[in-house]
C-alpha cells in the first residue's frame, strides 16, 4: 500500500483535497467582503483599493489556480465514477494541470 502513495493519482487526490480545504477556508472571507458593499461608507471600494497590490494579486492568482485545480480534478472524479472504468485516467490529471496553468497565466496577464 505504501507504493500507492508514490502514484500520480495519489497526488491528484491530495491536490483535490488540499485545494478544497483552501477554498473552504477562503469562502467565508469572500462572502463577508462582498457584504461590505452594503455599507454606506464605501467599505468594498476601500477593500478593492487595498487588494490592488502585487502581493494580494499574487494571492488572487493562487485562488484562481486552486479553483481551476479543484474543478478539473473534481470533473476527473465524476468521469471515473460515472463512466465505464478505463484505468486511472492520467491524461485527465495532466489536462487539469494544463487548464489550471492556463487559467492562472491568463489571470496574471490581465491582473498586472
Amino acid at each position: 500500500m505504501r507504493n500507492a502513495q508514490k502514484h500520480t493519482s495519489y497526488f491528484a487526490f491530495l491536490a483535490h483535497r488540499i485545494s478544497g480545504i483552501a477554498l473552504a477556508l477562503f469562502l467565508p472571507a469572500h462572502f463577508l467582503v462582498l457584504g461590505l458593499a452594503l455599507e454606506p461608507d464605501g467599505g468594498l471600494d476601500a477593500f478593492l483599493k487595498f487588494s490592488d497590490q502585487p502581493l494580494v494579486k499574487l494571492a488572487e492568482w493562487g485562488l484562481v489556480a486552486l479553483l481551476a485545480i479543484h474543478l478539473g480534478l473534481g470533473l476527473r472524479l465524476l468521469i471515473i465514477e460515472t463512466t465505464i472504468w478505463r484505468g486511472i485516467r492520467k491524461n485527465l490529471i495532466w489536462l487539469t494541470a494544463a487548464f489550471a496553468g492556463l487559467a492562472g497565466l491568463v489571470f496574471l496577464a490581465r491582473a498586472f
Partner: protein
Amino acid sequence: MNDATAYMLQRITAMIIAPLVLIHLGLIVYAIEGGLTGAEILTRTRSSLLWPALYAMFVIAISIHAPLGLRNIITEWTGHYGRWLDLSMTALALFLLAIGLRAVWTIS
C-alpha cells in the same frame, strides 16, 4: 445523514457547481483587467436578474458541497465521525448559506 446520501449530494452539487465555476472563472479573468471597483462590479451584477440567480444557485450548492467535503476529510484524517460532526457541518452549511445569500442580496 447516512454516507450514501452524503455521497450522492456531494456529486449532485458538484455537477451543479462545475458550470458555475467555469462562468465565475471566466468572469474573474474578464473583469480583473484595469482593476476592480465596487461600481463596476455592482453595475454588472445589477444589470440582469441572471447574475443574482446564478450566484444564489452557486451559494446554495456550495453550502452543501463544502461541508460534506470537510466531513469526509475530518472522518478520514482524524477518525472522528458521528452526531457532533454532522451537527458541526450542518452549522457550517447554514453559516455559509446565510453569509452567501447576504452577499447575493448585496450584489443584486
